[in-house]
């Protein structure tokens, strides 16, 4: 687990408003290679919008996002190409229900021309092994439990060999007994050096796995720090209030 000095994503004065409502109000930060960033905050604070802006699922209304040196908010940039390097895992899994698990994993690498069928198949087997579900290859998503679905969703994103993984409340839709298996897998990913940005309510994960924790409230980063300092010495009064409620 080592954080390099190489900046992977640079967010500069990011703003997003829906009509009159300001969701993101001037957010700037840098995400370096190997970092595991946990984003916490009250619901409706803009943390998911911030995460979804990083791969332009939300279009920013102001500011820039630079990914691997390219300003992806520039209209001339091929966003699809950029997204191939940015994996995303959703709260609701969003597996493709009309395909087997293995097809779910193989679809993007093959159709986007990154791998041959054989390569993608081998990679899928390897990933299924890694997420501990090799026996599910030929089943359909609806046959799986929530925790298994989310592990497959992670495998599907990993199949593209992304440089960073975005997690949008990956355990919030899970039954409590399934949260652990997903967090464990994410922890392993972090230990392997994957750069991760995780919007979460799991304070334990933020404390143990994250290299940096951001507190977003009212559309701005109110506090950011190493997990140790963040939880032991919260400075912002809103954060102190928030932590007193969730811990």
């Amino acid at each position, binding site marked *: 687990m080592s954080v390099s000095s190489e900046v992977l994503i640079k967010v500069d004065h990011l703003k997003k408003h829906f009509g009159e409502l300001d969701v993101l109000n001037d957010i700037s930060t840098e995400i370096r290679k190997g970092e595991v960033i946990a984003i916490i905050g009250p619901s409706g604070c803009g943390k998911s919008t911030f995460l979804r802006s990083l791969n332009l699922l939300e279009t920013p209304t102001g500011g820039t996002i630079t990914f691997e040196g390219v300003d992806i908010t520039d209209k001339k940039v091929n966003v699809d190409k950029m997204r191939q390097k940015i*994996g995303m895992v959703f709260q609701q899994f969003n*597996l493709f229900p009309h395909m087997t698990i293995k097809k779910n994993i193989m679809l993007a690498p093959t159709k986007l021309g990154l791998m041959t069928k054989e390569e993608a198949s081998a990679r899928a087997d390897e990933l299924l092994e890694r997420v501990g579900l090799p026996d599910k290859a030929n089943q359909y998503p609806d046959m799986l439990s929530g925790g298994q679905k989310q592990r497959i969703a992670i495998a599907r*994103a990993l199949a*593209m060999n992304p440089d960073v993984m975005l997690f949008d409340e990956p355990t919030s839709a899970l039954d409590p007994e399934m949260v652990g298996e997903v967090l464990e897998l994410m922890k392993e990913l972090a230990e392997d050096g994957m750069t991760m940005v995780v919007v979460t309510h799991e304070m334990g994960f933020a404390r143990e796995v994250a290299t940096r924790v951001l507190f977003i409230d009212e559309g701005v980063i109110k506090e950011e720090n190493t997990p140790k300092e963040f939880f032991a010495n919260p400075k912002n009064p809103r954060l102190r209030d928030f932590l007193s409620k969730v811990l």
Partner: protein
Amino acid sequence: MTFQEKLYQNFIEDKRYLYLLNGLGNTLRITVLALLLGLVVGTLIAVVRTTSDKTGKLRILNIIAKIYLTVIRGTPVMVQLLIIYYVIFASSRADKWLIAALAFGLNSGAYVAEIIRSGIMSIEAGQMEAGRSLGFSYAATMRYIIAPQAFKNVLPALANEFIVLLKETSVSGYIGIADLTRGGDIIRSVTYEAFLPLIAVALIYLVIVMGLSAAVGKLERRLRTSERK
């Protein structure tokens, strides 16, 4: 006259069964071509409408599509057939059955468009987001992820539309096409016997529709393998 004699008189004598057989041929020709045309037109319109709704692009095409839907769904198919035949193709020598297929196809396209659009809208937004987040374009996500699921959802409605289409072609006689219905009616006018030829016509439609329903049911069950149970 006995029943057997009536059967003979209506269907065998002077090879009158040929009115039904040739009529059925025309009906099926028109239906199949109209069905294909309707699917193509309907899919195009559905894509224009949903793309415009979701991305704000294709504004002009969307307006044209909306006008098309309003006009086609707001007027009877028989009036459309008559206008296309007597007005638009007034001075053309194109085959009548082709003109009929065009009219029914354009009509069906409007209904198919709304069916397909409802199918696309029924797929939750997360599927599009998952596709896009993997690096697929909007079009590729539609093709690999949204369309196959939408198709499965709208199959019963599409089958229903095809059944309606098959039966609607029975007004083809109004532009002088000897379709199945007109064939039965010709026999009636020759033999002065209404019951047998018209019941025969009705039975033929019924058998085709039942066959179609059974085939769709089978396809539906095959497509449903991805669901639990």
